[in-house]
């Protein structure tokens, strides 16, 4: 209960605390009186009071309610349940110590519980801050990856077009064609990257949620492969999907993007022209998508932070142009689907696997994870 209290507005918190205190006192008096009618053992009655005082101090804000209640309780106890009955009398020896102890116990408990409440509030806040920091980190990573990956082709476009404009007179036809082809290639690469980034805007800003609908697996895979074929006509992909008809909850455009990103990475960064394997496995709880290439594999130093978006050393950066954003985006998308994504090396190259759960999961995607 004391976890819920702090989320209410201040005034309501205090009203609630007051209600709890009053009802606590009333309950303890009524119960004590009922007990008193059966048995006049004042020790047990004191225990009843203490029990309710603990309840009150656990469920009120601050120390004050607990302390005030404990004083009232002591007065009531003295007035009603100790000899001489229905008079206040602290002078009988032993009584005074008993009352003092009772007051001390309740004050101590009030202090403890309110301390506990503050602690749990702090913990919740820390958790929230941590989640926010994670989100912030993800954004920063994405931004860093973007600016890094976009600068290279833009430099290429500017350089090539300036070359054309400044040297138009003495470039041969072949050279002109080369320059324009370079501009074309760089800008095609750029537009793909921008499409990639645009897909991320489909994911909810704060809680990383997406709208999923039941989609036919083979259609999503089919379109992704078709787009790959259009973009890279030379690329050979061996696709193998389960025979049965499978519907999966997903955002089809996003999953298509993940598939294309992984296939494109396999094509451009494996350093091999061997056909790429694309395998879909129907597992009991999930569907796994596996992209396997037969190239030189993932460099060792990159294995640990494949999906973090941190560019590797500058020398490497140009070689692996584009891997940065692509994989960060894949991870973001798959996390939003409550799936998993991982990359590893097999004997003859690299292998990336992502999975999607079959049932729409009850749990929300873990907030803030990249």
């Amino acid at each position, binding site marked *: 209960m004391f976890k819920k209290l702090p989320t209410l507005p201040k005034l309501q918190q205090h009203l609630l605390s007051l209600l709890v205190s009053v009802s606590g006192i009333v309950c303890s008096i009524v119960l004590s009186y009922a007990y008193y009618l059966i048995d006049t053992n004042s020790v047990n009655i004191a225990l009843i009071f203490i029990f309710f005082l603990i309840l009150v101090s656990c469920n009120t804000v601050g120390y004050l309610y607990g302390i005030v209640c404990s004083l009232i309780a002591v007065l009531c106890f003295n007035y009603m349940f100790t000899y001489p009955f229905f008079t206040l009398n602290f002078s009988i020896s032993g009584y005074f110590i008993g009352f003092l102890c009772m007051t001390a116990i309740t004050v101590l408990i009030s202090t403890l519980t309110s301390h506990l409440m503050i602690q749990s509030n702090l913990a919740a806040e820390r958790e929230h801050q941590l989640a926010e920091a994670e989100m912030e980190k993800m954004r920063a990573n994405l931004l860093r990856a973007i600016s890094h990956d976009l600068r290279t082709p833009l430099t290429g476009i500017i350089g090539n077009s300036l070359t054309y404009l400044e040297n138009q007179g003495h470039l041969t036809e072949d050279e002109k064609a080369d320059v324009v082809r370079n501009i074309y290639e760089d800008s095609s690469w750029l537009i793909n990257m921008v*499409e990639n980034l645009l897909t991320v805007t489909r994911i909810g800003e704060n809680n990383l949620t997406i709208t999923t609908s039941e989609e036919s697996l*083979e259609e999503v895979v089919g379109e992704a492969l078709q787009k790959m074929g259009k973009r890279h006509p030379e690329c050979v992909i061996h696709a193998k999907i389960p025979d049965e008809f499978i519907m999966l909850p997903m955002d089809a455009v996003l999953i298509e993007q993940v598939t294309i990103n992984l296939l494109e990475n396999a094509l451009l960064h494996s350093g091999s022209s061997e056909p790429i394997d694309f395998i879909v496995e129907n597992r009991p709880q999930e569907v796994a998508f596996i992209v396997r290439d037969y190239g030189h594999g993932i460099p060792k130093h990159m294995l640990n932070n494949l999906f973090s978006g941190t560019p590797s050393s500058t020398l490497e950066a140009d070689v692996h142009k584009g891997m940065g954003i692509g994989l960060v985006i894949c991870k973001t998308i798959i996390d939003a689907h409550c799936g998993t994504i991982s990359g590893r090396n097999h004997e003859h190259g690299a292998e990336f696997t992502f999975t999607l759960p079959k049932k729409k999961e009850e749990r929300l995607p873990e907030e803030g994870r990249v």
Partner: protein
Amino acid sequence: MAAKTQVLLIEDDKSIASFITTSLSGNGYRVIHALDGKEGLSLAASNCPDIILLDLGLPDIDGCEILKELRTWCSVPVIVISARTREQDKVNALDLGADDYIAKPFGTAELMARIRTSLRHSYTASPEKVYRAQGLEIHFEKRLILLNGEEIHLTQIEYQLLTLLAENSGRVLTYHYIMNAIWGPYMDSNNQILRVNMANIRRKIEVNPAQPRYVFTEVGIGYRMLENESI
């Protein structure tokens, strides 16, 4: 020589308009260019173009409004040009009567192919008798489907679905349109039944349903069948 086919281009971006105009002229079309929706509508009325290329994001009027307006008085084929990421816009435009759409960025070859397909569908008054492409043959009158010479057996619904796509080969048909044409307007909007039937058709005519050769999916929009080669 026959009169040149006239294309009306409604596009506000000068750079894009310039390259479309250049490539269309190079392919033997005559191009009229409108910079905004109002000009586009008046040029459409005064010039009677054979086909209209319409950009959805115009400065003055929303592309869909222009489409609605156009469809009240003429049936000239319209190809919508749109940014790639917003499927709903494309679906709306298609359901409002656009013949096809092409997503930015596109190459000239793709644009020319789309224009040819749309023009062909608007010129041929009677439907074709045979669909033929890459080993698949559909004889509409005989209700016969052959794949590499062998007969393929489809259920009633599957046959209707495949022939609907074949009659409109090369064009994208939205889920909504197909559901309406085959199951009627009172079917609920869940198109799972359509997906299941399509999956069954693919298992009968495609070698690998994940890499289809005949019926392509446009995720979130609908299906497009490979162009009929027999025309």
